[in-house]
């Protein structure tokens, strides 16, 4: 079972245990350090806990059998999430480098893994910060009463409401028209929306000011961005539980449907959610843990952060669904009242004759006696389940469903500000990890002069990402974002995660890894870690990767558009992608994944042709050359 691939020269590329002790004692080396353990934990928690905990997990939980979803989620958390997290923490802490540095140290042929991480972090960062720009736009608009998404604007001659708004809803109109000004197809680019560009500028400059000096500045920022969401969630929980209908929502969320456990899609979604939720394979976690002291207990950290992440998901699901339950109840009551009014007006019954309790009997009775009139009224179908399951994931949850719920609460601007500040903090702390995953590999690769200060690297990354991210400020920007989300942030990560596991366990060597962990934390990793690292986690990852790939490839590529002419309006219409999209999809998903084998092949040929150069490179790369000895040391 102790399979180990040949890996010559490993000892020359990595610091030995003795070197590490020396570095620790003398505090030599110019690597930045955490001010205290709390900063490190808060940064990691902030990176892991992101928007997905708020708007992806609750939806998955409810759609895959409610309380029963906890079972696959917890099982996969323990078998997949915690081992991978521990692995990334341990290897970063041991090799004391960012993602490219770590994989290059293990074996120069594996540099591609680091480069793939960097590319994925870059692509994901681009579109994630656009979501931040949207959140900022809503936040800026929350400082007014009444909220702009609670009213429809009047049409040109002031006789009625704008048609698009009247047919859909005020929140839909504000999101699709006034925020995105969305076009009807992805090829219809439209122009740049100046207010979106301004919001993007705000998002990137705010990110820059927090990341400008690396963990020196982000370490201070996380005291707020990682703790504030919990405070706001608690406030919303208290507010939500006192609203009418909250219990309905929570019941809907947690009612278990054990049959869902037989559905393989449930397990696949649970596995994917655990993987993405932990922000693994981005390279950021490896970087963060490389700033730790050498004897930091990374095992404890991994377990702690996993528990926090899992609990946050469940906690935020409760909060979200209590508010959703409130909104659904309000809509249901409105629907019933409208129907009752229609019936009362038609039959001239006195008010109070028909109430919500006897509505159904009365209508049933009237249907037998005055069938035509009842049919002519066009009574709406009021179904509580429909209202509860409307648009409850992704941007639809935050910008449509939740904003609508907020308009129905008293003191709406306050709740709107709190909600969007919470979303902003959740997203910003995740962006810290993304930027770390781009800037540090960039520095390690040596593509740009090393003498440039960190501020310039950070600024350059932010500027380039902003420039390319302007595509999301076009009228079709929303569709591009969905494309990026589906393809750049899914398959490549699974591939990288799998390669990371194989590299550490079979190329670096599980024996060496065990000894390293024993050196760092004092005891050898127990049988649980051995079993999961060697067999269970890689198998789970392979399964998820294959199933994910198969489902993506087999389903026809369509996307949802907001089209007034479509028959199902205001429901989004499903439209097929134009054919040139496949090129884009290949760039997004294929290039990061393929960079792993391509770089390995490139390095292989480079070695074969230029053998002498390689040896001299190796000697310069050793640790003793890198450690700066103090000036006062006399030989």
């Amino acid at each position, binding site marked *: 079972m102790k399979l180990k691939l040949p890996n010559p020269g490993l000892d020359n590329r990595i610091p030995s245990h003795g070197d590490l002790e020396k570095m620790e004692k003398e505090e030599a080396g110019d690597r930045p350090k955490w001010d205290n353990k709390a900063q490190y934990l808060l940064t990691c928690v902030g990176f892991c806990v992101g928007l997905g905990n708020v708007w992806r997990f609750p939806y998955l939980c409810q759609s895959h059998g409610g309380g029963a979803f906890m079972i696959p989620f917890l099982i996969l958390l323990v078998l997949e999430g915690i081992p991978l997290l521990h692995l990334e923490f341990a290897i970063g802490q041991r090799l004391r480098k960012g993602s490219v540095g770590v994989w290059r140290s293990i074996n120069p042929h594996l540099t591609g893994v680091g480069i793939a991480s960097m590319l994925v972090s870059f692509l994901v960062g681009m579109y994630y910060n656009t979501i931040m720009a949207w959140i900022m736009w809503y936040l*800026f*608009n929350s400082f007014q009463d009444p909220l702009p998404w609670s009213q429809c*604007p009047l049409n040109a001659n002031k006789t009625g409401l704008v048609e698009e708004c009247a047919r859909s809803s005020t929140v839909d109109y504000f999101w699709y028209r006034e925020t995105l000004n969305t076009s009807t197809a992805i090829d219809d680019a439209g122009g740049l929306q100046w*207010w979106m560009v301004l919001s993007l500028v705000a998002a990137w*400059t705010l990110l820059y000011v927090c990341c400008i*000096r690396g963990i020196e500045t982000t370490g201070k920022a996380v005291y707020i961005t990682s703790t504030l969401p919990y405070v706001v969630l608690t406030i919303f929980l208290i507010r939500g539980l006192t609203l009418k209908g909250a219990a309905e929502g929570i019941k809907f969320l947690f009612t278990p449907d054990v049959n869902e456990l037989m559905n393989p899609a449930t397990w696949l979604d649970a596995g994917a959610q655990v993987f993405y939720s932990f922000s693994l394979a981005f390279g950021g976690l490896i970087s963060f843990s490389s700033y730790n002291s050498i004897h930091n207990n990374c095992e404890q950290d991994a377990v702690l952060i996993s528990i926090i992440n899992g609990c946050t998901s469940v906690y935020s699901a409760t909060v979200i669904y209590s508010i959703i339950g409130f909104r659904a109840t309000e809509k249901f009551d409105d629907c019933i009242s409208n129907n009752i*009014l229609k019936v009362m*007006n038609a039959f*001239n019954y006195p*008010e109070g004759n028909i109430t919500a309790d006897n509505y159904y009997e009365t209508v049933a009775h009237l249907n037998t006696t005055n069938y035509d009139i009842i049919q002519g009224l066009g009574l709406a179908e009021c179904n509580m389940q429909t209202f509860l399951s409307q648009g409850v994931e992704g941007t639809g949850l935050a910008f449509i469903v939740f904003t609508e719920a907020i308009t129905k609460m008293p003191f709406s601007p306050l709740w709107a500000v709190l909600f969007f500040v919470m979303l902003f903090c959740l997203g910003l702390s995740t962006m810290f990890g993304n930027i770390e995953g781009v800037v540090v590999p960039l520095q390690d690769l040596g593509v740009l002069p090393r003498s440039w200060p960190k501020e310039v690297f950070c600024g350059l990354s932010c500027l380039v990402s902003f420039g390319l991210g302007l595509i999301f400020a076009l009228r079709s920007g929303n569709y591009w974002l969905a494309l990026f989300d589906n393809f750049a942030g899914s398959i490549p990560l699974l591939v990288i995660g799998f390669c990371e596991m194989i590299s550490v366990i079979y190329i670096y060597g599980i024996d060496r890894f065990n000894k390293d962990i024993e050196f760092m934390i004092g005891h050898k990793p127990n049988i649980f870690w051995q079993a999961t690292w060697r067999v269970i986690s890689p198998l789970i990852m392979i399964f998820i990767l294959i199933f994910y790939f198969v489902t993506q490839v087999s389903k026809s590529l369509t996307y949802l558009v907001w089209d007034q002419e479509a028959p199902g309006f205001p429901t989004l219409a499903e439209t097929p992608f134009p054919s040139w999209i496949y090129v884009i999809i290949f760039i997004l998903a294929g290039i990061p994944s393929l960079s792993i084998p391509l770089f390995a092949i490139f390095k292989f040929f480079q070695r074969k042709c230029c053998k002498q150069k390689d040896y001299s490179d190796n000697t310069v790369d050793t640790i003793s050359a890198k450690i700066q000895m103090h000036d006062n040391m006399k030989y």
Partner: protein
Amino acid sequence: MLEKIILLLCCSCAVAQHLCTPDASDGYKVRLSIKTALEGQAYEWNENEMFLFRATLAFAMRNHIREQKFEVSNIIVCNETPRVSFWFVVTSPESTSVLIGKEDVEEAVRKSRNRINSAFLLTDKTLEFIGILPTLAAPVDPDTPPWLIVFGVVMGIVGAGIILLLVSSVVQKKRKNEMTDDEENCEETRVKTVENGSVGEGVYNMSFSDDERFTQM
């Protein structure tokens, strides 16, 4: 004589009632939803309330057509239902068999809608004139959108932060360079004093280690 007056009144009533019919071309249907609007404090709809309605409408007509003095008797109501809905028509004060046109009635109601609503503690939604659309309140449109103001504030703070941090790192770097320069200067002066002690002269080359200095002596 008395019979004649009574007959005349009955006739006029009949004629008047004849003018007010559901779906009359110059009439409007009114619907009140008192319990929905006021819930616990809802009042009963009775003759007195109807009288108030007719009086308010006469007031609205007077406000609109200033030359004619409309009376309560000019507002004729019919077809009352338990829903609290009814039809009304407005007759001209000069001749009770002539109805005031639909457009004039609509205009009058629109002008004084607010007053009519407040007389009954109701709103446009709960006191409905079927066919007369309520004038929609235009949403408040400030000159500078409030979001630009917040954006400006945030960008100002962020910009100040960036400049502060960049300037402080440049200053820090300068200070570090100065410190290392100072250290080098210190060593040079040390060497110079030693040099002065002996006969040595010339520019001292810092690239050599201290060991050489000692061995020279």
